[in-house]
């Protein structure tokens, strides 16, 4: 089947405006503007069952329908902050097939009659963002973006905004603050972005992920039913799966929902290198719980529902694969370090929780962990979950800890056993030493204990 999103794999030069247009590009936007009312466009997207690809899986048409029609100013903001460890799908669209994103964003903008579109690119996408501006200009010259789009009388410029390196700015309300020149911290909700007071410059705003919007031109051109026919009834359409870590062919794979973990990892990804066995899978980057690579997991279909039923989340479908030699305590420590670094510090459970978790992991990895530390690893994350934080980062940060403790507890115990054995051996050695010193009468015992080390 030809790709719907990663069309660069079928048509290498599709990033060029002329090539995109020669291959049916912008026909979706033309059809939307010339043949459909904004309400009809929302209805089509609703019926297609397209759900957000940024992680939360919220129905896209529903999100658009929340925008009040009578609001004088409205925005579409494209979330191109892509910073979840293991995620690099939006980047391929932006780099290799940028017009499809521009077209999708313009159709969304038409559907809500937006005043402007802002594409928030993570700052590290520096080169890509500057190239994207040139492509937007090409679309503007062809009257597909900007003033009087396709002669419809509707004006809608598209701008690129660069972030500067902060994972939290991928969270939609933090993103809006960052775009407004405020500190990139999440907002208290409600109001949600679609509501007055909640969006960009406090106007009703649709925030959508790059991949989500890239689906839209195809849906408008081919109809909701055609899109819904792909995948499964609950998880419709195609998804880009990112494969990274211990896998023979890392990269992006666009596939229909409903294929199994096994097909994705072994058929498409080429399996695990060096003849190793697969041990663990993170299906949604660092944010979702880890799954052990059991037969049950490998045979499960990749849909939002079935991954949730396994106890994890499909999220943005960033698969980080770990082979049998991977130290899961080390892996959890890496992810904890990530969340500690990226916590914006606004809520106490997240700020303090990630701080203490990281300290415990350092202790464990240094070979100084105790059973008490393991108890803390079970209890601290509990205090970060259950909606006690302003955004989901606090909950994300608990996942790698709780899920590795759940599935790989023996590895934690091994660290502590080793640490205890080392402590005992050291104490024995110190006692010997103290004993010798004591005999010589040089040092009192108490001083010796602290000082010898």
């Amino acid at each position, binding site marked *: 089947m030809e790709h719907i999103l990663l069309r660069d794999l079928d048509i290498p030069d599709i990033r060029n405006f002329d090539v995109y247009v020669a291959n049916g590009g912008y026909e979706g936007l033309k059809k939307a503007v010339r043949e459909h009312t904004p309400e009809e466009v929302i209805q089509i997207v609703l019926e297609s069952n397209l759900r957000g690809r940024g992680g939360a899986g919220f129905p896209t048409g529903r999100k658009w329908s929340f925008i009040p029609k009578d609001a004088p100013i409205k925005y579409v903001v494209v979330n191109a902050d892509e910073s979840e460890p293991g995620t690099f799908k939006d980047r391929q669209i932006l780099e290799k097939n940028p017009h499809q994103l521009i077209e999708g964003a313009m159709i969304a903008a038409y559907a809500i009659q937006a005043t402007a579109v802002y594409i928030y690119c993570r700052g590290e996408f520096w080169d890509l963002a500057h190239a994207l501006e040139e492509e937007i200009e090409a679309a503007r010259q062809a009257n597909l973006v900007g003033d009087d789009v396709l002669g419809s009388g509707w004006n809608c410029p598209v701008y690129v905004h660069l972030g500067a390196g902060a994972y939290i700015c991928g969270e939609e309300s933090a993103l809006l603050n*960052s775009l407004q020149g405020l500190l990139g911290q999440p907002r208290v909700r409600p109001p949600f972005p679609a509501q007055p007071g909640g969006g960009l410059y406090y106007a009703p705003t649709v925030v959508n992920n790059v991949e989500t919007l890239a689906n839209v031109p195809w849906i408008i051109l081919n109809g909701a039913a055609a899109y819904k026919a792909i995948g499964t009834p609950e998880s419709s359409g195609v998804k880009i799966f990112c494969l990274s870590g211990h896998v023979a062919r890392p990269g992006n794979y666009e596939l229909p929902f409903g294929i199994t973990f096994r097909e994705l990892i072994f058929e498409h990804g080429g399996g695990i290198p060096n003849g190793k066995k697969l041990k663990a899978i993170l299906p949604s980057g660092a944010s979702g719980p880890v799954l052990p690579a059991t037969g049950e997991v490998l045979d499960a279909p990749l849909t939002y529902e079935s991954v949730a039923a396994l106890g994890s989340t499909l999220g943005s479908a960033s698969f980080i694969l770990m082979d049998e030699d991977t130290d899961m305590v080390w892996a959890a420590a890496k992810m904890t370090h990530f969340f500690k670094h990226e916590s914006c510090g606004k809520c106490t459970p997240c700020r303090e929780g990630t701080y203490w978790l990281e300290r415990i992991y350092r202790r464990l990895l240094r070979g100084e962990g105790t059973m008490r530390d393991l108890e803390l690893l079970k209890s601290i994350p509990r205090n970060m979950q259950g909606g006690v934080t302003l955004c989901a980062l606090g909950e994300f940060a608990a996942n790698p800890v709780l899920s590795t403790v759940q599935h790989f507890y023996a590895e934690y115990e091994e660290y502590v056993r080793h640490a205890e054995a080392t402590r005992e051996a050291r104490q024995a050695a110190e006692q010997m030493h103290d004993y010798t010193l004591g005999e010589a009468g040089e040092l009192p015992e108490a001083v010796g204990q602290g000082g010898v080390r």
Partner: protein
Amino acid sequence: MLAEKYADRIEKIFSKYPDKRSAIMDLLYLAQEEYGWLSGDALEEVAALVDVDPTQAHSIAGFYTMYSEKPKGKYWFQVCTDLPCALRGADDFYQALCEYLGVEDGGTTEDGLFTVEQVMCLAACDRAPMMQCNFHYHENLDLDKVKALVEQLRQEAAAAQGE
């Protein structure tokens, strides 16, 4: 001063937004490009351009990893050592790079040319080990490739000095 030297660019940045304040991130980049880093004076200058208090410019500069409030080497290597890259050898790669350059984690070489730093995922995990050098990506790296890059940059820097 940025306002005179880059009047056109600044105008273009302001024209993107209904509120001046949104321009602060682009202007911080501009100041960093001009001065090499964001000193207190540079932050004040940017703050004045967008009509905010300098302390707010400070807090924004401190919030993001791509702004530097300290002088950096001419070439700023930001190596990703996040989990997916680390599973493909990024930690060892980073250590070897530090040793090759003779610097500690986060340090700058004595000649002031190279600063090395570890960063979080840069959305290039399928091409690990990888890093960013002055905001440009270098992917599928190994020590030999990065040595060649360092050599090339040294020559570029020497040539620039000779001019």
